[in-house]
């Protein structure tokens, strides 16, 4: 309703200021209050700044602590020192292999005029070893996933071949019986073709090259080299075949850890949420009076690794969402009493008498703040696809998105409801399951930080935001599409 000027003008006729409110009387009080306000504001400013600063400091501390821990672990457990430990991740093995291969080739080329090239020979049925071709470093190894690397290491032939511009060696090797070579495809063959090289030179130079690589893996090659015949002698086919066979027998068996594909995790933590009530008077009033408060939840999750960087997870999540309904309830009672009377004198009798002239209303008011704590319990099944980012062999982060199907298990408390829908008169009513949809669908996004304790166990901190797509409320009067932010800490077992 618009301002009523008739009434306003009658009410707002400027009153004369009482002497007790003159400037002289008020100046001191106002000044004192102003000083208090300025003092409080400073303190409040400090408090709110303090809260913001505290949050920033906390975040900063977390970042610093995380970085320090990361740095500490990297410094303490460099990838190179863990090549033999079973807990080393496959990514680290891949990096190590790659690094060692390049070092081997670099070092070998520095110490010898012989050029070394690496060939990875695929496990073909008819393995021709490709010794008659000038190999180039197979770049695929750099991109290989742990799984494919593992396969390559186990099934393929890693061959270090010394080559030079002279065709002698290549011609000679080409003359090998293909069957003999392919029958022992895991051998490493080092040859030297320079006519003036002595046997000792050859051995020294090649040992340097070989020692730079994985000792266990190249043990057979070393043995082969140490028994290399003098250069002046003719290298005959039988000798080479024998040595290859010897090397095949002495080849160490390297067991690489298998990549765990599954993980099972248990999580729990705190949630913050809001009801997001909208539409009609009831929706607006709910939004104003009922607020989501600090709640909690727990979940069990199973995760399947589709790839080193992608995984799919699902599970079961239980959440107890609390809300607070806060309103003022006032009751007044008006009692009418006929207490104002007027005295008259009867003109006829001259006797006095009294008549009731006015009723007086006595207004009594009871005022109280009412708070109801409500509880919405949900059980849901999220399906999430995650993309992982590996920072080191211990730390990785992931982002994920997906859908969640939920069921409303339990409702407790009181909330606002329509007492009279037509006139939109609201009242406080008990929460009833009938007024809520049992099935809920939500979309979710999450970010997680994982710490790999060892090969089997890891810790995860995850932050997830769910947004209900379906309406929690099943009446047409208003919509409730809660947004939930969950912060969970969980322990995962990988198998």
């Amino acid at each position, binding site marked *: 309703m618009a301002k009523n000027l008739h009434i306003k003008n009658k009410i*707002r006729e*400027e009153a004369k200021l009482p002497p007790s*409110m003159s*400037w002289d009387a008020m100046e001191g009080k106002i000044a004192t209050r*102003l000083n208090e*306000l300025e003092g409080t504001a400073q303190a409040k400013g400090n408090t709110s700044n303090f809260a913001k600063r505290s949050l920033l400091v906390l975040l900063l501390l977390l970042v610093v602590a995380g970085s320090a821990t990361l740095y500490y672990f990297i410094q303490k457990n460099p990838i190179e020192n863990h090549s033999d430990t079973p807990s080393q991740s496959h990514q680290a093995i891949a990096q190590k292999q790659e690094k060692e291969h390049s070092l081997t080739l670099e070092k070998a080329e520095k110490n010898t005029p012989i050029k070394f090239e690496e060939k990875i020979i695929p496990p073909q049925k008819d393995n021709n070893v490709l010794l008659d071709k000038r190999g180039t470093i197979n770049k695929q190894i750099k991109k290989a996933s742990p799984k494919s690397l593992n396969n390559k290491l186990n099934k393929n032939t890693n061959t270090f071949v010394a080559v030079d511009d002279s065709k002698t060696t290549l011609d000679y090797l080409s003359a090998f019986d293909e069957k003999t070579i392919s029958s022992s495809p895991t051998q490493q063959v080092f040859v030297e073709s320079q006519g003036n090289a002595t046997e000792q030179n050859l051995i020294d130079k090649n040992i340097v090259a070989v020692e730079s690589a994985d000792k266990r893996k190249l043990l057979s090659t070393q043995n082969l080299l140490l028994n290399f015949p003098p250069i002046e002698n003719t290298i005959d086919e039988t000798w080479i075949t024998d040595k290859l066979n010897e090397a095949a027998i002495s080849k160490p068996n390297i067991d690489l850890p298998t990549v765990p594909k599954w993980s099972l995790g248990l999580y729990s933590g705190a949630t913050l949420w809001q009801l997001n009530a909208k539409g009609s008077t009831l929706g607006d009033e709910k939004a104003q*009076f009922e607020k989501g408060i600090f709640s909690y939840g727990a979940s069990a999750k199973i995760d399947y690794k589709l790839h080193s960087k992608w995984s799919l997870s699902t599970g079961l999540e239980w959440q107890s969402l609390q809300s607070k309904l806060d309103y003022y309830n006032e009751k007044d009672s008006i009692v009418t009493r006929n207490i104002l009377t007027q005295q008259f004198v009867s003109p006829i009798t001259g006797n006095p008498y009294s008549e009731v002239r*006015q009723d007086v209303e006595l207004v009594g*008011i009871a005022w109280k703040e009412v708070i109801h704590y409500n509880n919405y319990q949900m059980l849901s099944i999220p399906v999430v696809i995650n993309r992982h980012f590996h920072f080191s062999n211990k730390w990785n982060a992931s982002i994920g998105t997906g859908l969640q199907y939920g069921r409303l298990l339990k409702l407790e408390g009181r909330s606002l409801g329509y007492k009279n829908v037509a006139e*939109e008169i609201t009242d406080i009513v008990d929460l009833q399951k009938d007024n809520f949809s049992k099935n809920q669908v939500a979309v979710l996004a999450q970010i997680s930080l994982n710490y790999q304790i060892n090969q089997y166990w890891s810790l995860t901190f995850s932050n997830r935001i769910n947004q209900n797509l379906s309406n929690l409320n099943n009446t047409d009067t208003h919509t409730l599409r809660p947004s939930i932010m969950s912060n969970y800490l969980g322990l995962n077992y990988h198998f």
Partner: protein
Amino acid sequence: MITNKVIKGCLAKERWAMQQCYEQCAPYVFTIIKNYIYNETDQQDVMQETFAQVFYSIQNYDSNKGKFKSWISQIAINQAINFLRKNKKLSFLVPLNEEALDIKEEITKIERLDKIQLNQCIEIMPIGYRTVFLLNLVEGYTHDEIAQILKITAQTSRSQLSRAIKWLRKHIQQHQKTLTYG
């Protein structure tokens, strides 16, 4: 009329400016406050709080957004309501059965009352009714705005106004009856 010079002086917390501001605005502010609060000591407290707030937050005053008088009146109303709420004098009844009321017609009747009658009626009106009545009909706030100011629902505000008008109607009738008998 508050000049820019006075405002600047208040910003600089200069005594002469504050005094001039107070002396020019206090009667108007007092007129507003006395509609909400009747006890003189309470009125004094609210006046003190209002002007302290005015001088404290004068940097927030933007002359492009409205007159100084409107700005100061908003502060006065807020302070009066805060005072009532703090002292738990403000209360609102959520009606169970609301009888339909032709508000326009009733307001016309109220408009016919003379100044003294109207002020007398408002003075004895229950405080919850009075606050909503003043905020809606005198200050021109909508029910949604009143709901926000008083932290009640818009529905409660509507029903409070309706009840305030009914209450006034009843008192006008009694008043007229008294006049007839008198």
